[in-house]
């Protein structure tokens, strides 16, 4: 910290560091309003007034984003959505939404991350690449962490690695990410039983491509794209000691699967982390359905837990707040005055692709950069309001842009870790002149909307 500027960052991952060091790039601290095709600077009051008018007048507005702001702001957002009878959705919808749908069918055996640090001796990453998406995950919570009942698996790696002097590139990358010098196992596919023979903590990666995480693993299982469902169901059958009519599934020989199944049943406490590799590929919620069922089934033999690898920093918080206020975690439709929920019907992508929405409010998110073209087209064809600290693809296309303060850097709040542990976010620097927290901006819009409605009410 040097006079209200962050100069260096401690114990954050590469993404985190980039966030802290560069949060102030590409910002326009002034609100903007589109006047005949051009975004021009305007006063905050004007921007808020305009936003309120757009929202109060709409008959099917969508309020989207929420995963990169604080729970406090989300609480206001829900009140606003209720007031204007809109649809409120968060980024789960294109991340772990399908996971939620299958949890609602099957349930989920899970825990907090510390539980795994202390106890897990078998760690499986399925369709998830923690190295790239969650750079500190392996190091802090799983294979390389040290727990009460489980030593770190570092030694195992180091000893095996002293033999192999390969993978210089990877080495550099690793130490870059994990901030310490480590080595990596060779990239030969041994038979699982050999690779997983050790008593120590073991790590398996299942994915369609050999990711960086895969190279850290004791065993990498490559599954053909879009065949995860078959593979998971086959495993479920094997742990029930049933036999299969086929001799390979998703490009994996049954003999290998049988060995994996034995390792899973044989561990003391296993965990399966699954990522969007499952939720986005063919089968979507049913892939997760199978994964959740697999873990549930193994609990008849040993303790096994499962956890989605959630992305955006407070997406778990968004689901959490949505759920306690409305009963539903995302895709909530207030158009009838009470919460309704049916992803596929009330989820933002579907509403946009059907061209039903007639206005949009985006908070701390960039759908234009993350939604399919068809959805984006319908989003930008309607009046669009963006509340975001930085300039984004979406803010470029908006009709009203209200720059806000960075939560966790320029303003405080509460956020949830992916295992539902709530954490306080602190304020470390002052926001730029005139940049208010999302919470305040939303409260002021809500206030204006209520004034407008009141006038309307008196009008007729």
């Amino acid at each position, binding site marked *: 910290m040097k006079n209200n500027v962050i100069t260096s960052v401690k114990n954050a991952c590469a993404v985190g560091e980039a966030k802290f060091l560069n949060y102030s790039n590409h910002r326009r601290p002034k609100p903007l309003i589109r006047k005949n095709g051009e975004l021009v600077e305007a006063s905050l009051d004007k921007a808020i007034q305009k936003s309120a008018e757009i929202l109060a007048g709409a*008959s*099917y507005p969508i309020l989207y984003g929420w995963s990169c702001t604080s729970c406090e702001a989300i609480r206001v957002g829900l009140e606003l959505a209720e007031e*204007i*009878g*809109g649809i409120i959705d968060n980024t789960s919808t294109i991340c772990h939404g399908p996971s939620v*749908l299958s949890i*609602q*069918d099957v349930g989920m055996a899970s825990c907090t991350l510390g539980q795994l640090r202390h106890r897990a001796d078998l760690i499986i990453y399925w369709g998830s690449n923690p190295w790239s998406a969650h750079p500190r995950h392996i190091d802090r919570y799983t294979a390389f962490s040290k727990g009460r009942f489980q030593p770190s698996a570092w030694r195992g790696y180091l000893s095996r690695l002293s033999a192999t002097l390969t993978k210089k590139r990877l080495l550099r990358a690793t130490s870059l990410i994990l901030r310490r010098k480590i080595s990596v196992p060779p990239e030969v596919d041994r038979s699982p039983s050999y690779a997983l023979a050790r008593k120590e903590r073991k790590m398996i990666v299942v994915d369609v491509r050999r990711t960086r995480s895969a190279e850290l693993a004791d065993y990498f299982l490559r599954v053909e794209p879009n065949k995860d*469902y*078959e593979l998971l*169901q*086959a495993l*479920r*059958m094997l742990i*029930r000691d*049933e036999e*299969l*009519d*086929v001799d390979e*599934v998703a490009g994996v020989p049954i003999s290998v699967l049988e060995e994996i199944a034995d390792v899973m049943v044989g561990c003391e406490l296993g965990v399966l982390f699954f990522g969007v590799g499952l939720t986005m590929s*063919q*089968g979507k919620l*049913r892939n997760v*359905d*199978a994964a959740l*069922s697999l873990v549930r089934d193994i609990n008849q033999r040993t303790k096994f837990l499962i956890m989605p690898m959630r992305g955006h920093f407070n997406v778990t918080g968004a689901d959490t707040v949505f759920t306690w206020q409305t009963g539903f975690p995302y895709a909530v439709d*207030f*158009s*009838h005055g009470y919460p309704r*929920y*049916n*992803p*596929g*019907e009330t989820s933002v992508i579907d509403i946009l692709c*059907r*061209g*039903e*929405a*007639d206005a949009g409010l985006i908070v701390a998110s960039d759908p234009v950069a993350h939604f399919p073209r068809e959805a984006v087209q319908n989003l930008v064809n309607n009046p669009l309001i963006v509340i975001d600290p930085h300039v984004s693809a979406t803010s470029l296309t908006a009709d009203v842009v209200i720059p806000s303060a960075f939560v966790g850097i320029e303003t405080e709040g509460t956020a949830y870790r992916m295992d539902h542990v709530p954490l306080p976010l602190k304020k470390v620097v002052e926001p730029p002149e005139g940049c208010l927290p999302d919470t305040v901006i939303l409260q002021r819009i809500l206030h204006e909307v209520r004034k407008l409605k009141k006038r309307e009410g008196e009008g007729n």
Partner: protein
Amino acid sequence: MITLRPKRPFKVSVEAKCITPNDFAGKTINEIATLPIWEGNKKRTLGELFKIEGESNVAPEDCSIQIFGDSSRVRGVGAKMSVGKIIVEGNAGMHLGEGMKGGAILVKGNVDSWVGSMMEAGTIEIMGDAGDYVGAPYRGSTLGMKGGAIVVHGNAGYEVGCFMRGGLIKIHGNVGQFVGIHMRNGTILVEGDSEGRAGAGMLEGKIIVCGYVPSILPTFTIDSIRPNVKVNEERVTGPFYRFVGDLADGGEGKLFVSQGKNPHLNFYEKYL
């Protein structure tokens, strides 16, 4: 006969669960016009959005409703209806005949997702295509379609007959993935092709696919080859491979797949 015509095209979805013989019966046209419906977040009356004509004060059982024009954004038509008839001349929106307890619905065009969800009795016939989740339950519930019949002359989407517990679903065209997923009982007949994963997680019941299937889930085991299958009174001629599953869930469901259309499955025959 009571006829409805949309007065204008709808941009946002219209929720009209009141369009049922049960709600129209014994009412004058003017009373019917005052029934409340939703257009997006705006409360409206049926009369505001539809031109309504026809006779008044009909008895429920003689009450038939005809909807002209495009109602592909009108949701919940025929919800919970127990008697009478609804004819949709164009397309119909989501949740058509949701929780239906009797009577008949005929759609000349296509219909969106969740047609006949949670239905208990009655018949729904779609001349065009149907969306996803035909006869499915609400999220989180395992109480899918309990009885009655849904006939789709065109194609249907994903998860047809999800958590189905009884009744018949007949698709003359093709179906997407996961037909009969988590099926508990009942019968699904697909005369076209399936995109695969048929019968995933099924416990009981019968699925017949007369067309091509890319593959059978590894958690099904072949049981026999049958010359034909009985569906209610009707006899569907094969021959069919008969699989049992989904063994991953300890299921006893029966999956019939055409032998002729699926030569790539003949390796299963070595187990017979």
